[in-house]
């Protein structure tokens, strides 16, 4: 840290830096481990403790007596609760999330199959949110009280107040049913079902990789509405936060100093202030991305988008508890991962936290 002995620093800093890094790593691992364990404790509680008969919740009420008995032993229900939790954690750690009653396949396989659809939607939504939200927020802060500032305020207020599934329904009604500008529910028209084979599961990417332009156009027209919708909510959040971070940065003394040395205003705003605002902004963007992944349960239901959200809601409707809890664990883990990732990014973006 700064002090009169700063001259001595190069001699001291290397071992100290290494120890600092080790400490940060240990801290990160402990945080990741405890948070994941907490998540599993939660899903364990939901799956095993709350239901009157956890077996029934897992295999469904039409299962035979043998199946019920076998599952009871498999789940270790005859043992103490803490031991059951241990078994549960060990199984999840091996990627063992149980069988889905609905698809009679391992839940993890199902999730791998449907997840790319969710990822595609959330990614486009976040891209829209960042590409429009950040510049809007910056301009709102620069011209405080101006037209764009008012716009950001209204957009933000509505974004925090509109039920997303309702807006989705109305958007489908208007742009698909009435105007016919975009394609309706689903990811791709049935016509392409036989000619188009996905590679990665991210359809827009797959169509490009295969050079299938007619499929690509169709995929984009399916993507347009749901990703614009998610983009709007992401934009509402990101622009509002960008505005408030920028207002804070623009009031700092280093901005006055940058003006005093004659830098053009454009450079001051975009290179100095935004570069500083970017530090907390990264967290906001990661959180909004995580929020879109989680919010997929509602959007995907409205747009019949065959992703993780729709998978979970279908499982819910059919009391397929393994699938519900498996989906919860996966989304929860991704959510936690993004949270911690934003924490790491924060550290790399801000030189002040880097060497301590």
């Amino acid at each position, binding site marked *: 840290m700064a002090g009169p002995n700063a001259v001595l620093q190069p001699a001291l800093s290397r071992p100290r830096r290494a120890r600092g890094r080790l400490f940060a790593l240990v801290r990160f691992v402990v945080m990741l481990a405890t948070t994941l364990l907490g998540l599993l404790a939660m899903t364990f509680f939901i799956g095993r403790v709350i239901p009157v008969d956890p077996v029934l919740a897992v295999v469904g009420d039409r299962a035979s007596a043998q199946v019920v008995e076998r599952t009871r032993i498999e789940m270790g229900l005859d043992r103490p609760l803490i031991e059951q939790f241990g078994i549960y954690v060990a199984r999840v750690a091996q990627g063992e999330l149980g069988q889905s009653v609905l698809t009679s396949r391992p839940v993890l396989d199902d999730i791998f199959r449907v997840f790319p659809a969710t990822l595609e939607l959330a990614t486009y939504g976040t891209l829209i949110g960042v590409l429009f939200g950040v510049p809007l927020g910056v301009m709102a802060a620069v011209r405080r009280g101006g037209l764009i500032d008012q716009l950001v305020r209204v957009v933000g207020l509505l974004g925090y*107040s509109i*039920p997303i599934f309702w807006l989705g*329904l109305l958007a489908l009604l208007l742009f698909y049913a009435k105007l016919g500008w975009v394609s309706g529910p689903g990811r791709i028209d049935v016509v392409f079902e036989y000619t188009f084979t996905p590679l990665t599961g991210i359809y827009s990417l797959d169509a490009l990789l295969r050079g299938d332009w007619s499929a690509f156009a169709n995929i984009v027209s399916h993507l347009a509405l749901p990703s614009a919708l998610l983009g709007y909510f992401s934009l509402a959040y990101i622009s509002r936060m960008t505005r*408030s971070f920028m207002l804070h940065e623009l009031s700092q003394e280093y901005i006055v100093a940058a003006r005093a040395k004659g830098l053009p205003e454009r450079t001051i705003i975009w290179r100095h202030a935004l570069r500083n605002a970017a530090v907390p902004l990264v967290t906001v963007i990661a959180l909004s991305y*995580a929020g879109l992944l989680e919010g997929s349960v509602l959007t995907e239901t*409205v747009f019949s988008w065959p992703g993780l959200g729709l998978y979970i809601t279908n499982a819910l409707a059919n009391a397929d508890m393994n699938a519900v809890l498996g989906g919860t664990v996966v989304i929860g883990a991704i959510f936690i991962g993004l949270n911690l990732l934003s924490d790491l990014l924060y550290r790399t973006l801000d030189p002040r936290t880097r060497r301590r």
Partner: protein
Amino acid sequence: MNEHATPALANSTAQVPRSRGQARLRRYKELWSSFSSNRLALVGLSIILALIAIALLADLIAPYSPTTGGLGQRLLPPSTAHWLGTDDQGRDILSRLIHGARPTLMVVSLVMILAAPVGLLVGTVAGYAGGWVDAVLMRITDIFLAFPKLILALAFVAALGPGIQNAVIAIAITSWPPYARIARAETLSVRDCDYVAAVRLMGASPLRIVLRHVMPLCLASLIVRVTLDMAGIILTAAGLGFLGLGAQPPMAEWGAMIASGRRFILDQWWVAAAPGVAILIVSLGFNLLGDGLRDALDPRGERE
């Protein structure tokens, strides 16, 4: 706390208050004058007051029964008899909207009653005690904070069974952590103040200090945050209702009404549109009220 005594107010109320009650009264007056100068905040407040009135008087105001309709009156467009039309079971949509104010208000107030005190307690205890108590409590808080709220609420309701009480529990379980964070931050900022030291020297127990001298100071920021969260709670509850996990039929609930109107969206769009507008207006009301309260009570904090 820098909200008391802006020079203008100090001039208008120049004398020193004579009693605690008088001081409190004066402070409320100041708050009100700062809050009511914000027109949008007043709009928000009126929306919420209207919601409460409608929920209380639903039986008197609603022109028809919310649960029974005539089969001959299915899916009627808006008319003078049915201002917002009727749904697929011939029920008057306006009456259902009016009765739908009840579960909405119930969810919001129950979540608030459950989650805010828990967060307040955890935060103040962690902040005041410090040390390992703080470390453990905050780790737990952070763990809960890192959970996906909506998905976890879904899983909870899936296990507990659909229903409005279970939806409330599920939402409350995931909404206390931010309050704990806020309460802890406020506690840390007052813990080492001289007046707390004075109370401690007079022999007050830690419990008494936390209850009487720390918690009241956390309330302002907490109320702001809770109000701003209300809109989110309403949206989550409506989402659960939309997925069929909230209030069960035939109870009128706005999210569930959108779900049932979804099937007729192409030809009878008003069935799904009306409850969405109701949700939008109420969430907007809470957001405007929250923004206004924040500006009046807590001029420093920007929304997180």
